[in-house]
């Protein structure tokens, strides 16, 4: 099977995010970057499918040199090939999807995996957009996947339950937490990843369709009230919720 995992390089989940000097992007000073957590499930699923069916796994990312760190993480996990679509221009989901779709089209893969969303932009759009651009079916927020031949049955998470979706391959899947347990790279994997080649390509320049006008931190919450220190505070809390907050 030819499998593609699309991954992103994003701020660590513990990072405190501040607005940068341009007022519309984040201040990167001191921010650590990691592989997008949801993309680890995507990479892991590709590796499992390869282990079961044979083939190769290609990890792709769009970004600058810094993104190579995330590609090396994927190589350390065991992907066969890593590709950097080198571009640092401001892109939106549509233009990112276009670059990925143009590259992936040449590969004619059997399945393409994404994380369900990237924890920076939180659009949850790129995977499904790439599928539409490649005219392939897609299933998003996948928590379970069975592939038999060129058919797949995926379970996806919806409000209050799950949907069982049947589709044919090739297809795009976006991974949700719970799909699998991503492996920790072995020391051998980490060491060999350092010297594996990363292919670089230059994607076509595409204008974004969404423009960020401004970025702001949420309004600071004003200090709340400590109502008490034990169960005796409960009647007052309920009174406040009912009469002041009016939420019950």
């Amino acid at each position: 099977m030819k499998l593609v995992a699309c991954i992103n390089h994003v701020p660590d989940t513990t990072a405190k995010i501040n607005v940068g000097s341009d007022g519309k992007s984040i201040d990167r000073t001191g921010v650590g970057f990691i592989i997008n957590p949801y993309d680890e499930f995507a990479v892991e699923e590709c590796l499992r499918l390869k282990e079961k069916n044979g083939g190769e796994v290609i990890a792709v990312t769009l970004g600058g040199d810094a993104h190579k760190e995330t590609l090396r993480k994927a190589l350390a996990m065991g992907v066969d090939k890593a590709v950097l679509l080198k571009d640092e221009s401001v892109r939106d989901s549509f233009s990112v999807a276009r670059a990925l779709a143009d590259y992936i089209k040449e590969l004619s893969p059997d399945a393409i995996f994404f994380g369900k969303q990237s924890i920076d932009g939180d659009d949850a759009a790129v995977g499904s957009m790439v599928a539409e651009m490649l005219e392939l079916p897609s299933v998003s927020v996948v928590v379970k996947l069975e592939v038999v031949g060129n058919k797949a049955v995926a379970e996806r998470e919806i409000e209050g339950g799950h949907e069982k979706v049947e589709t044919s391959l090739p297809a795009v899947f976006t991974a949700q937490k719970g799909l699998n347990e991503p492996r920790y790279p072995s020391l051998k994997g980490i060491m060999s990843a350092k010297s594996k080649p990363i292919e670089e390509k230059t994607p076509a320049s595409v204008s974004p369709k969404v423009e960020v006008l401004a970025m702001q931190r949420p309004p600071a919450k004003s200090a709340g009230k400590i109502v008490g220190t034990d169960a005796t505070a409960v009647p007052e809390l309920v009174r406040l919720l009912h009469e002041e907050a009016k939420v019950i």
Partner: protein
Amino acid sequence: MKILAIAEQRDNKLKKTAFEVTKAARAIADQMSAEVVALVIGENTHGVAGTLGGYGAHRIIVVDHPKLKLYSTTAYAKAIAEVAKKEQAAIVVFAATAMGKDCAPRVAVKLDAGIAADCIEIRVSNGDVLAVRPVYAGKVSTEVKVTSPTKIFTLRPNVFSSGTSNGSIAPVEKSEIALSDGDFVSSVKEVTQSSGKIDVAEADIIVTGGRGLKGPENFKMIEDLAAAFGGAVGASRAVVDAGWRPHDEQVGQTGKTVSPSLYVAVAVSGAIQHLAGMSSSKYIVAINKDKDAPIFQVASYGIVGDAFEVVPALTAEVKKLLGK
């Protein structure tokens, strides 16, 4: 100018988000001399679709087909795009539900449109529609403009009010869109609902338990409190990773982002990643025996005390108030 409002139905009942989206579309339409066309996809949805007139739809279109009873990404995306093109809709609005988030990106590509996703605010400014959306798990938010001629917005559930029907009637038309078997290349075969419990993503009141509860058996009191409020049970990441609660209850950066009217955090310390998922809750109550727990910095009301004493007392008091 037309705004197409995608009204989601499940089991032939319109979801609350269908009314939220239609009402929000109408609020924009009124400022732009535009018409709101609501779209319902499914089988035999004619009857329920009619109710959208009372929530601001000027016209309602129904795409009806037995195979559309359950969701199909490719078929729904095609139907929505075809209707949008036929109506020459300049704006298409979805709810950012599981279905909306799955479908809107494919519709966007079909319509060559940009998407402002998971918006918490949309407004008209100098003839443009601007949107505010949280990014970086809600640690910051951005104000965005969609620059393509056709624009798509997906609205975060439970943020825009659905209000109540004003009783207006709008005509319901059956769409002539034709769908072929190939359009159903991927389709839902079965839907399983978690036994009767409310999903955190749709709840207006959430009670979340954290690691401080010491063990899964102690979640019974969280369930009881949630039931007393008529709300949902949420879980911190630590508790889900420990296997005490299922992942679909997880609130936080790698769980769900929620915006309920009331969020009660019990024995939750308030790590950045958890706050990222719930800090836009209207009111936050924290119950924790550590007075320095970060959760108290975002809580509207707090009790610094033993959850095992406070929670049962709170359940009893809430039941008393609500006459349960």
